[in-house]
C-alpha cells in the first residue's frame, strides 16, 4: 500500500466516516471542506507519526503540508528523507 493509500484509508475510516464518501481525491481540499479539523488533526498526527516513523512538529501544522492527500504524502516523504 502506498503512503497516499494508507493516509486515505485512515481518513476514510477514522475521520471522514460520517461523510457518505467512497474515496478522497488526491487534490481534494481537506481543510476548506472541514474533513480535517482541529480535533481530527490530533488523531491524524498520531497516525502519521506511528505509521511512518516521523515526528510531526507543531511548526509543520500548516496548510502547505495538510491541504490535501498529495501535500501530506509530500510532507511524509520529505520527513522520512530527512531522518
Amino acid at each position, binding site marked *: 500500500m502506498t503512503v497516499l493509500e494508507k493516509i486515505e484509508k485512515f481518513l476514510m475510516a477514522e475521520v471522514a466516516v460520517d461523510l457518505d464518501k467512497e474515496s478522497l481525491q488526491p487534490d481534494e481540499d481537506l481543510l476548506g471542506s472541514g474533513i480535517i*479539523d482541529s480535533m481530527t488533526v490530533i488523531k491524524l498526527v498520531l497516525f502519521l507519526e506511528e505509521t511512518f516513523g516521523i515526528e510531526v512538529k507543531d511548526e509543520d501544522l*500548516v496548510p*502547505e503540508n495538510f491541504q490535501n492527500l498529495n501535500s501530506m504524502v509530500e510532507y511524509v516523504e520529505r520527513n522520512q528523507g530527512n531522518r
Partner: protein
Amino acid sequence: MDFELTEEQVAVKKSAVRFAQNELNDEMIERDRDGAFSRKLWLKCADFGVQGAAFPREYGGGDADILSTVLLMEGLGYGCKDSGLLFALNGQMWTVQMPILRFGSDGQKHGYLPKLCSGEWIGAHGMTEPNSGSDAFSLSTTAKLEGDYYILNGTKTFSTNAPVADVFMVFATVDKSKGFMGVTAFIVERGFPGFSVGKDIGKMGLRTAPMAELVLEDCRVPVENRLGKEGNGAAIFEDAIEWERSCILASLLGGMERQLERCIEYAKRRKQFGRPIGKYQSIANKIVDMQVRMETARLVLYKVACMKQAHGKATMDAAIAKLYLSESWIQSCLDAVQIHGGYGYTTEFELERDLRDSVASTLYSGTSEIQRNIIARLLGL
C-alpha cells in the same frame, strides 16, 4: 517510578508558600470586593521569580524544570488567597510567554520575554470572540497582508489582563477557506494603530484578574510581529493551552491543600451536640473525600509535569488533569463551605470567595465538556 521529590523541589514549594503568605494576602477581602488588580503584587511576584520561573536565563528567567515550576505554583496556591492574581499570572506565563519562547524568532524572544519575566510588561491573550468560544477556530477576526503590515479587524472577548496589559497574543485568520489552518498568531502591542481595549468585564469570581474586550479596527501589525508561520496559529494555540492546562491547575492543588487543613482544624475545634463536628461521620467523610481528591489530583498533575518534561506533549493526560483538577477544586470549595456551615457562607471566612473563584476553572482553558471531547477522540470515539 519515583514519587519522591528532591530536596530542592521541596524547598521551592516551601519558599513559595512563605513568600505568598507574607507578601500576597493583604486587603484580600477589599481587593476582591473592588475588583482591584494589584501591580504592586505583580511586581513582587516577578521579583520572586514567578513569571520567569520556567524560562531560560538569557531571557531573564529562572530555568526551572517543569515539575519545579508546578511546585512553585502549587506553593503559591497554598499560601496565596488571591486566586485572581494567580490566574492572571498563569494566563501570561502559559499563553503569552510560552508561545513566544516556543515559536518566536530570536528578536521576538529577546524583545518581549525579558520585559514579561521582570514584570515590567504584562501580557494578555486574545482568542475568544463573542461568537466563538469552545469552537475557537471558527473565529471571525481577519488578518490581511498589505506590504510590511498585516491589517487586523475583529473583536476579542474575555481577555484576562487586558485592561492592564502592554502586549497581546492575538489570533486571526489569514484565509477562512483554509479552516483552522488559516488561523495565525500575532504579537500586538498596546500602542499599535487601530488597537484598543474595550470595556471591563465584571464577573462572579477571580475579580482581581481584570478582563476586557480587545478591539482591532484596521490594526496595523508589522510582519515581524507574526508569531510562527501563516496558518500555524491553531498549533500554537493548542500548544499554549496544553501548557496552561498542565500548569494552571497546580495553584488549584495548593488551594485544595489549604482548604483541607483548614477544614480539619475547624472540624476538631467546632463543637456541636457536645462533640467536635469531625467526630460525626457525615463531616469526617466529607474531609476524607477532600483528601482523596487532593492526593489523586496531585498524582495526575505531577504525571503530566513529568510527561511534558520528557516528551513536550501530553495531550490526553493534560486534558484528564484539567478535567479532574478543576472539578475537584469546585467540589473541595463546596465541601469547605458546607463543613463551616453558616460561617462558610460569610465573606469574613473567605471560603465563599474561593467557591466563586473556583467556578471559572471548569470554563477557562477549555470547558470540562471540551476536555471530555478531547479524551473521547483520543480513545477513538
